[in-house]
């Protein structure tokens, strides 16, 4: 998000904490799974300063809904584990309740502009695809089929062929190496990982569900 600098009003809250304008809310709230059209009418009646600063309960509710949408998109960007095949297709699995698939796809597209990105949404059972030109499609099919389908039309790009270890092995090793036993902080660790992230498909293998380098399941 771009930071605005307003010379006339140095106290204006900038950045993420500045809240959302009418336009932003009207544009983005329909992404929320619990959205109803009459919410827009209510938003229009609230003065912008109240809206931005969560000045009333309804303003607070609207901001909460907006936060739920942005958080879900943000978490998916953080915790979706992807793989790349030798034809330049990057794929992974997400669990998106709100309508934010396009945001997540665009994030990966910006990072890998020459790859095709396929993300399977476990919630809807559909696979979102973004191609090299940034065109987004949603297909009612499994990830495997979609990846096979899009890979067919691409030539082989031996990107990581000569790395003899799997990415997971490398990550596990890096992860374990960073542990400082003297700093162990169980409560903080649990707090830092939101429950719903444990439900994300990329997390199910358990790379983050662990404590003292053991998976949490080892304790349960």
């Amino acid at each position, binding site marked *: 998000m771009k*930071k605005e*600098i307003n010379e006339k009003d140095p*106290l*204006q*809250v900038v950045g*993420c*904490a500045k809240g959302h304008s009418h336009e932003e809310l009207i544009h983005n709230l329909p992404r929320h799974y619990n959205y109803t059209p009459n919410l827009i009418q209510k938003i229009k009646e609230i003065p912008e*300063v*109240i809206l*931005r*600063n*969560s*000045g009333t309960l309804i*303003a*607070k509710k609207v901001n909460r809904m907006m936060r739920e949408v942005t958080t879900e998109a*943000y978490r998916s*960007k*953080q*915790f979706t*584990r*992807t*793989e790349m095949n030798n034809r330049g297709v*990057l794929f*992974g699995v997400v669990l998106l309740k709100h309508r934010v698939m396009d945001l997540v796809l665009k994030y990966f597209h910006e*990072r*890998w*502009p*020459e790859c095709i990105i396929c993300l399977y949404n476990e919630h809807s059972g559909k696979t979102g695809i973004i191609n090299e030109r940034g065109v987004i499609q949603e297909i009612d099919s499994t990830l495997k089929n979609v990846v096979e389908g899009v890979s067919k039309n691409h030539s082989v790009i031996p*990107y*990581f062929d*000569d*790395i*003899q*270890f799997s*990415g*997971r*092995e*490398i990550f596990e*090793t*890096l*992860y*374990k*190496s*960073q*542990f*400082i036993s*003297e*700093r*162990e*902080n*169980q409560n*903080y*660790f649990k*707090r*830092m*990982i939101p429950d719903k992230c444990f439900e994300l498909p990329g997390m199910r293998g358990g*790379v*983050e569900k*662990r404590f003292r*380098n053991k998976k949490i399941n080892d304790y349960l």
Partner: protein
Amino acid sequence: MGKVPSVLEKIRILGENSKYDICASTASSRTNKYPKLFGDSKKWIGATASAGICHSYSPDGRCMSLFKTLYTNKCIYNCKYCFSQSCRHKMSFTPEEYARTFMKLYSMNVVEGVFISSAVCGSADDTTEEMLEAIRLLRFKYNFRGYVHFKCLPGVSQYLLKEAISLSDRISINSEASTKEHLAEIADQKDFKNDIIMRQRWLKQIRVKHNDETLKFMKDLKQDNQLKYQEAMIKERREDGYKKFRWDGAPILNSGQTTQFVVGAAESESDYDLLKRIDWGYKEIDLRRAYFSSFIPIEGTPLASKQAAPLTREHRLYQSDWLLRIYHYKLKDLKEILTEDNNLPIGDPKIHLARQYFKDHGPVDPNLAGFQELLKVPGIGPISAKRIINLRSRKFKFKRRQDLKAVGVVLKRADPYLLLNGTNQTTIQNFIDPNNSKFLQREIV
């Protein structure tokens, strides 16, 4: 001849050797207003997110977002607190290995960028040359344009620093200690003035010079609409000499320079010594921020029998650093709450400062207090203070505690220092010491 270690073995050992190095996630958002650092092309892979993205958390709650390992653990120095004295498995990455391993991890979306640090093998210049080669490969062979944090080695040459700056988002040189004497106590081979301070000054000079040139170039392009803001962001300073804007969107080294201290390794080093050094850093070398790492004794080193520094000390230093940078407190304010041995007292420094301030001034009414006064209230940060002022300027009046809660005030901390509708939330202090309690006297009046 010994067995050549595998990449996994290198990650395991060199990752572990680097675990005490601290870095934030990616505090980097490159501006679009300047000519692009690496040009604009579809071939570039990676991006920098404006808010740091953490891809995983270690069991102590620290976020892991960067590929953080040493480049080599072979070292010509023998700092007393460091693993290098005890680690028997000495190894180095090759530039190609380093770059490819990172790219593999990046494709899995488990790291956001690189933090490249190293011991000093042969000489600082030799090792830096190799580290730079790894980064060059990342940038120009693998086309990675994402976040790179480059750790400068003590005593490195200026021409290498210049190149490192042109390839990285953030650079840091570890100060380790606050003064020459304290450094000599824990790392007597390092020359504080020459190896560290001089390099930190160079970093600032190179950055300022480059930014000035770019601003001039932009003037020639007559893009002065944005330029006015950009110039202000890069150049404006607060009264106390700190930079006014922490994220200034400068075209090179956009995440600035940082430094790190080992807290509690030097016997006589106090919190005040450390705070004085970072205050100097913010004023003189445009330090973006400082990191503190509590000393942890490592088996087999000269300091193995020394007690570990409490993590709470590190925490209080971070809180005080925050007060200096974000809340605009002065070093002399913090000095007033220090204990006799010049250390920070137990507990949140902001609460200590608030107790002192509000003892004399009494609680404040959020409908009347100025921005700086609101900031002094524990539980009110810059964002909630700005919101309060914003709402007030639009004739909003705070009458209920919920109103304050809604703008983000943490009431349980703020209550004792706030006056709402002429009354102050009763605290236990009112009962303990009624004669001295100005708060209570006010209510009675």
